[in-house]
């Protein structure tokens, strides 16, 4: 009994050590936040179209009316990584049989229009979220973020950061999982 008591600090230290080892293991990012919307339907959003861009606005009903897998991408013209991922997203929209929809986050319509003109507009529908409320509705913390929504309108995956390089690979893996 007495020995047990004296061993207690050691036991506690080992437990903490175990958790610390887990904490340092493979690719864990202490500041990343998992999305609250995985396996849930798309929350209520209703965003007007971007002025000067020839695409309809975006609402939850619109999204649910669309067939197949949808990629909901938050982007902005002032966001460098968004520019980097743009060609990859465009390609995904064309080749992978997914519908690309976008939300322009905290961006001036003119700037967005110019950006899309320069880089091309792969989006089927675009919502203008100047106030950032749309982003809050989906719990985003910055741009770019991309949600994979399945054919039934359920959000299956949230990808934070640009879909480039290793990120692109992981994104494609996630996409494959959703397809099954």
């Amino acid at each position, binding site marked *: 009994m*007495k*020995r047990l008591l*004296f*061993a207690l*600090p*050691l036991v506690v*230290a*080992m437990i*903490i*050590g175990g*958790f*610390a*080892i*887990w*904490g*340092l293991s493979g690719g864990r990012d*202490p*500041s990343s*936040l*998992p999305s609250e919307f995985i396996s849930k339907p798309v929350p209520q959003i209703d965003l007007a179209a971007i002025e000067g861009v020839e695409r309809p606005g975006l609402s939850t009903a619109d999204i649910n009316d669309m067939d197949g897998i949808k990629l909901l991408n938050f982007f902005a013209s002032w966001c460098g990584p968004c520019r980097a991922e743009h060609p990859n997203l465009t390609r995904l929209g064309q080749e992978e049989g997914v519908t690309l929809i976008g939300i322009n986050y905290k961006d001036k319509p003119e700037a967005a229009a110019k950006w899309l003109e320069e880089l091309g507009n792969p989006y089927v529908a675009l919502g203008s979220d100047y106030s950032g409320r749309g982003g809050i509705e989906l719990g985003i913390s910055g741009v770019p973020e991309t949600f994979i929504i399945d054919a039934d309108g359920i959000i299956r995956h949230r990808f934070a950061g640009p879909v480039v390089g290793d990120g692109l690979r992981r994104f494609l893996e996630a996409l494959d999982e959703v397809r099954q």
Partner: protein
Amino acid sequence: MIPELGQFALSLALIAAVVQSVLPMLGAARGNALWMQSAQASALAQFVLIAFAFGALMRSYVVSDFTVENVVNNSHSLKPMLYKIAGTWGNHEGSLLLWVFILAGFGAAVAFYGRNIPMALKARTLSVQAWISVGFISFMLFTSNPFTRVFPPPLDGNDLNPLLQDVGLAIHPPLLYVGYVGFSIVFSFAVAALIEGRVDPAWARWVRPWTLAAWTSLTAGIGLGSWWAYYELGWGGWWFWDPVENVSFMPWLVGTALLHSAIVTEKRDTFKSWTILLAILTFSLSLLGTFIVRSGLLTSVHAFAVDPERGIYILGLLILSIGGSLALFAWRAPSMEGGGLFAPVSREAGLLINNLLLTTATATVLFGTLYPLFLEAITGDKISVGPPFFNAGFIPIMMPLLLVMGVGPFMSWKRADLQGVLSRLKVALAAAVVTSLIVWYVTTGGPVLAIIMMGIGVWVLVASVQEWGRRVKLFQDGAWARIRRQPRASHGMTLAHIGVALLVLGATGSSAWKEDLVAFADPGAKIDIAGFELTFESVERQRGPNYIADVATLSVTRDGEFVTTLYPERRFYPTAGSTTTESSIRQTLAGDLYASIAEPAAEGAKSDWLLRVLYEPLVNFLWIGTMFLVLGGSLSLTDRRLRVGAPRKSKSKAAPIGATPAE
């Protein structure tokens, strides 16, 4: 050339440390005096070599040698000299070098000033100390070398974060590290004692000065950090229970328990296991702190370097040192029998409660800090554990402790007369109750807890002063002589306890009754707060050595009478490309009037400037209280009885009280 020499010196120091880890320990086991004494030479060698390395790095900063990568990343030619020097330790690699420097310094100090410590114990202690050195120096050489070069050298450095270009923050790390690393000596003593298999009361006497020194420095370091946060960050906060703050606080809490426990072991030959355990835990928590800050395990505003690879190395060090020492404790400590018995009401009992409550408080803070990690590992959920939890957990544990703190000094060893003690404390109790009633009457709003805490703060204050007055028989003839005859450590105790009381009052006042106002302002605007009226007079542009500032002038009046002028600034640092706020504060004992200025972020804002004005009642009691703590600790350090190994000045003087034959 010099950086290379510095690195070479570090490698040599590692060799000295390796020798020191083995030879003295073996010598103690075999009774080989020569091997045991080799510790002296190796400790000195380590110190000299590491001092050289530290000097080499500092020189690189002072001359802005941009061929050294560390200097490039953390300095700039335009930085004021003080911050160039402080830049030496204001980064991961440099701070490790500082750590190792202080470690070697303490080791050398024990080697040379611990003259009355038995040879075997000293040898074992220095060996354990060397194990720690080996761990940290090798960590540096293999993963965090401050002397790596960069070719071609850039034209200038990347500048230190302007937020850190501050006097308080420049001294903050060295003070903290003397604290953290100082506890390593006590740790080494404890492990050595476990290896030897016994703890004499004399052991506790040797432990005490080192504990005091480390504790005092740590107190100063934490206080300085809080003070810096208060005046620099712009919203008058001084503690956020951020993981990095917590990992500095936990060694302080158990260090305090250790200090008290060591006294019991010395005087009454009991609490041995407690004292040894606390000695191990204090340094273990220091190590844990080092780990958390540098590994990226937890997110924090303060985090140094987010590097899991380094984290794994440190974790390895931790597993060896903490796991090893606690295993040794589990194995050896049960056979160390305690000596003195004591009654349920006695000073020992009071200090036992002290140990228990401080340890529980530490465990609570540790649990709260690590819980997000635990939960994420088990369920994958991410939660935050912030001030609401820590305040709810910590304060209720502190309250009984503070109550006992008032009573404790009155109690005698072995058996105390509780009735007698409590009857003497009637004055303190009355003062506490009266204070609470006055506070309740005078203030509007603020939680009931705050009113109680104010009362408790006064309780500790009056009880401490009263105990001191009684001890020196203040109002009887010859008081001054009695004061001078008292051992300094007992004056130190009184000062420190008063310090705690002031801390409680300051913390309560500035948290519960803080006023906080943000307003649009253009020159000419007026703001009312806490009975003061502030008039925004003007804004002027000024240049500093490496920044450009907008300085506002605010004149402050109360009831129409001029009180003071405040000059909050907004500074822009071109190279770092960032801005900082320099607040302007009017400090009085009653409270601080605190102003800062910034530009509105929103487009089309109603004015050119934002003014933020705070009133923080009693906040200066925090800093004064900390100073009392440091004063108390320093005074105790000068106690004659603690100079166990001080070199004798003349042969005619009797041996110092602390000197005992080696047993």
